[in-house]
Each structure stands twice: as structure tokens, then as C-alpha cells.
């Protein structure tokens, strides 16, 4: 008899579990790009719920790729990646996207804001591009509160092109936090910021993670920031410059 798997639990509001189940659980993960370059092999890696982890390592060692695998943006050739109790490689593309927009807040080094939108519309973007999130008055109010909290409350109507680098990254962080995700993945979130803004943005991310019990995983090259994290993973251990072909190359989902 066929067994139906209930994948809908990830659509329920997130509540940190007292059992401290791992937010990310990776076992025997293997991945390489079709055009080659490097191969990623992660035999075992776990990140607890509510943990703050920094990932360091040389450029091109696969740090960002790992975050993409955790977020379900890419699928591994072999092994398992369980994110918030969900094996994303078993989900269809549309379900992976729905999962991602509800459970994962992504922050990029280059901010990746939409230049034709103002600050508020950029913050609200996740609610406009996926029908599984409903944009209502409460969400708008939360967006306004987040902007206020980030010190850009007076600039919500301003086009993002007219913001400073620090302000742009704060808008990007607001966008990532709006859906109140249990997992925050940040790729060099402070890479383009001056020291003042660097601290400010990191403070925001850490404070949010602590207050909501969210997990924060950050890829960084900035060793001055490492003291703010509970655990540091050096990626050198997972990096193979001369990979042997073991499985079919990956394609973007």
C-alpha cells in the first residue's frame, strides 16, 4: 500500500522546538558543478536550531554552494541534506520554493535589491512573488516595524538606488526577516560595508536570531567577526581541488 508523505508541515508557523533538533543535518553530501572546478564532499555536518555558525575558507571552496544546497537552490548528486526536518531533494521545485520562502531568509553580499522598487516594496518582495505567503495588513505593519527597527523607517518610500550601501544591506536584511524564518543564511553579508555598518548589520542579524531562536549560518572572510558566532566551520576540510568523477554533474533546479 502506498504511503502518503505529509510535506505540508513546513507551511505551519515556525515555533522553536525545545528538543533542539538539528536545523541542518548533512550526511555524505557530494556535489560538483558540470563545468568542473571543485568537488564538495561533506561526510557529516549538523547545525543545531538557534545556533550561530560562521563558515570560513578560501574563495571557491564551495561555502556558498553549501548554503545553496541547504536552501534547496541546488540538489546534491548524492548524500542527504535535511533542512528543518525536510529533505529538500525529495520535493518538487515548486515545493522547494515554497519551503524556502517560508523557512529560509537569504542575505547576499551584493544586496540583490530590485532597483525599480522603493524600500518598502523591496522588503515586501517575498510576499509578492510566491502565493503561499499572503500579503496583508499585518505583514505590512511588520515590514514597517522592521524598517523602523533597522533605522530606515523614514526612507520606506525612497527608491533603493538612493540609499547608502549600509542602508541597502539593511533593506536586504529586512526582506530576509519579514517571513520570520527559522533559518537565516547569509553570504558575506558585511562584505561591502564600512566598519560601522558592518557591526550594525551583524548586530541586527544576531539580535534577530537570538530573539526568535533562529539559526544563523554565515559565510564570511572577515575574521574580525568570528567572535560573534558560537561555532566556526573551516571549509578546507570539505574541499577537493582534483575531484574524481563519482556521480552525474549537478544541474540547477
Amino acid at each position, binding site marked *: 500500500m502506498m504511503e502518503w508523505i505529509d510535506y505540508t508541515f513546513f507551511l505551519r508557523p515556525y515555533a522553536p522546538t525545545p528538543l533542539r533538533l538539528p536545523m541542518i543535518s548533512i550526511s555524505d553530501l557530494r556535489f560538483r558543478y558540470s563545468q568542473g572546478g571543485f568537488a564538495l564532499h561533506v561526510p557529516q555536518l549538523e547545525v543545531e536550531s538557534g545556533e550561530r555558525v560562521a563558515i570560513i575558507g578560501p574563495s571557491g571552496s564551495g561555502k556558498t554552494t553549501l548554503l545553496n544546497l541547504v536552501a534547496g537552490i541546488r540538489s546534491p548528486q548524492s548524500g542527504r541534506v535535511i533542512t528543518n526536518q525536510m529533505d529538500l531533494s525529495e520535493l518538487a*521545485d515548486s515545493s522547494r520554493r*515554497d519551503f524556502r520562502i517560508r523557512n529560509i531568509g537569504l542575505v547576499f553580499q551584493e544586496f540583490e535589491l530590485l532597483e525599480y*522598487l522603493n524600500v518598502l516594496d523591496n522588503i515586501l518582495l517575498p510576499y509578492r512573488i510566491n*502565493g503561499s505567503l499572503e500579503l496583508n495588513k499585518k505583514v505590512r505593519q511588520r515590514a514597517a516595524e522592521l524598517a523602523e527597527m533597522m533605522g530606515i523607517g523614514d526612507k520606506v518610500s525612497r527608491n533603493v538606488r538612493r540609499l547608502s550601501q549600509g542602508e541597502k544591506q539593511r533593506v536586504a536584511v529586512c526582506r530576509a526577516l519579514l517571513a520570520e524564518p527559522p533559518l537565516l543564511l547569509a553570504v558575506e553579508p558585511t562584505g561591502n560595508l564600512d566598519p560601522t555598518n558592518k557591526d550594525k548589520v551583524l548586530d541586527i542579524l544576531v539580535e534577530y536570531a537570538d530573539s526568535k531562536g533562529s539559526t544563523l549560518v554565515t559565510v564570511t572572510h572577515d575574521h574580525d567577526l568570528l567572535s560573534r558566532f558560537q561555532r566556526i566551520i573551516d571549509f578546507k576540510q570539505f574541499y577537493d581541488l582534483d575531484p574524481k568523477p563519482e556521480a552525474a554533474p549537478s544541474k540547477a533546479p
Partner: protein
Amino acid sequence: MKDTLYLAWRYLAHHRIKTAILVGSLTLITFLPVGLNVIVGQSARELTARAEATPLLIGAKGSPLELALNSLYFESDTPELTTYSEAVRIEESGLAKPIPLYVRFQSRESPIVGTTLEYFDFRGLEIASGRRMAVLGECVLGSRVAASMGVGPGDTVISSPESVFDLAGVYPLKMQVVGVLEPSYTADDGAIFVDLKTTWVIQGLVHGHQDMDAPEAAAGVLKREGDTITANASVVQYNEITPDNVDSFHFHGGMSGYPISAIIAVPHDQKSGTILMGRYEADDEVSQIVQPATVMNELLGTILTIREFVVAALLLVAIATLATAALVFLLSLRLRRREIDTMSKIGGSRLSIGTLLASEIVAVLVAGVLLAGLLTLLTVQFGEELIRALLLG
């Protein structure tokens, strides 16, 4: 759906110049063939309506098109001239009522139409102010001429010489405006109407000068032979007809030999019209009779053929424009690759992202087509006035 439409709107509004160019190009390329069709159709109706309201035209043998254009729209060069005797001949045939026309002279840019009062009844022209012309030297203005010249009853207009170097030819004649016509939205609005004899005065065939028996004219008399007096150029010729000098105007020779450009023949019935046309079939006949509707339909046939070519050319331009628009959209997609990637990464659904991109294209296309539709409606609504302004302006 409304959220993706909102994002599409924000994108289009942000890139408003690009959007305006795309919408403008699509509007024009959609509107041009349709608008051209409407305008040509309306022009055809406008041209044929007056031609169909004019049963028969008679003039000297020559170009039927020139005869029709000159007599119906007061356009084109003056056709070969016939004589007033042709009008007398039609009258005496008892087959039709002749309305002679002499369309040759101008006052500034406006044609002076020499005719009889029957022309006003035939065309249904009503007087808006003043009265119809009653004596030599009076004129009635079409509504557009009166407006453009800023003259009315009590004012005067002066005929223009045919050529500044024609010293022995046509002299300017100052004419008294006695009436202005109601607008008829035809070529009549742009014409100055005078009695046929007044056009002959303009031409110098009928003239008035000082009394040669008066003592002050004696110095100009060269020779007297019975009733014939030969005078030199010092004799004063009148260039304005007034109550004081109107009696001095006189014909030299018989009126039947005086020139006219055409005759509108209004047959008493269809049979009379057919008989009248038959009379002009003879090989030695020096005049021609034409049915204006037939002549104009031939002209329109040529215009419609040209339209086919123009529409075909526009369709090619439309294909090129659409290809360019498609290229712009594709390039735009390439430029927005990063934005699309970002939306995908943060969890945007394929449907939403696809809808966002498609709705921008659809919005541009729909805006272009709607604007073209609006322009077409405006053309249908106001095209006739535009055509009148262009054709009759």
C-alpha cells in the same frame, strides 16, 4: 496575481521612457494601417459624395479629371475653356438645366467662381449673413474664406492678377462683399462666388471706362470713325464697379462667344440625361460630357491601389517593429537575469516570476493596441473634419 501585476507596473513605470517608446511604436504600427484604411475610406466617401451630387459636367474636350476636379472642388488647373454658347445650347435642347461655371481667377489663394444664382439652389447653399449677389462686381464668400480673410458684408476683396508680368492681361478688380454662406463642409466653403459676367470683367472682356464724349477724355481720343472711337492708354479704366460707373460697363462682341470652364447640366429626368450624353458622342464634337461620379471612381481606384501598396509596406514595417520589440524584450530579460535569479533564490514561484515578466510584455502590447484603438476611434469621429481640412483646406 495582483501582486505580480503591481511589480510589473512598478517596473514599467520605473523604465518609463523605454516603455513609452515601445508602446508608441506598437501604437503607431497598429494604428497606421487601420487609420489609413479609415481615412482613405472617408476621403473616398467625401470625394464621391460631391461627384455623385453632380449629375453631368460639360466642358471643352480634354482631361475629364481636370474638368471634374476644377468644377467640383475648384482645384487643379483651369481645363480647356468652352463658351457660353454651350450653355445656351443645353438650355435650348430642353433636356437639362445648365449652370455655367467659370473657375479661373483667384483672390489671394481662394478661387473665384463665376456662376449664376441657380448654383446656390443646386448645391443647397444658404446665406448666413447679407444677401446673394445682385449686380456686377458683387460677391458672396464661402464661410471658410470669410473667416480666413476676416471679411464680411460691406467689405471688399480684390482679384489677383494671373501673372505680375501680364501687363496687358487681367487687372485686379475690387469686389463688394454682399453675403457670406453658411458652412457646407464642401469646396464651396473655400470659394468666392460672383456672377459669371463679373469674371468676364476680371478677364477684361467686359469693361468700363470714362465717357469718351466727355471733355476730359478728349485728349485721349486718337481717332473717331462713326461710332468707333480709338483712344490711347491715358483713358481711365475702372477697377471697381460702383453705382456711379456701373452703367459704363459694356460687352465687346456677343456674350455667346465668352469663355466658361464648365457647365453643370441637371437633366430633367434620366431619359433626358441619356439623350444629352448621346449628343456629345459625335466624333466632330468639340465638347465633352462626363459623369463626375465615374471620373472620381476611376481616380479613387488609383488611390485605392496605392493604398494597397502602402498597407503592404506598413505590414512589413509592422513585422520589423514587432521583431525589434521582441529583441528589446529578450535583451531586457538578459539584463534582468540577476533579478530573476534573486527572486528564484529567495523562493519566488516560477508562476509568479513568469507572470511578472509576461504581464510586462502583455501590458505594453495591450497599451499599444488600446491606444491604437483610441486613435482609430478619434479618426472615425474627427477624420472627416481632418479630411475636409486637408482636401479642401
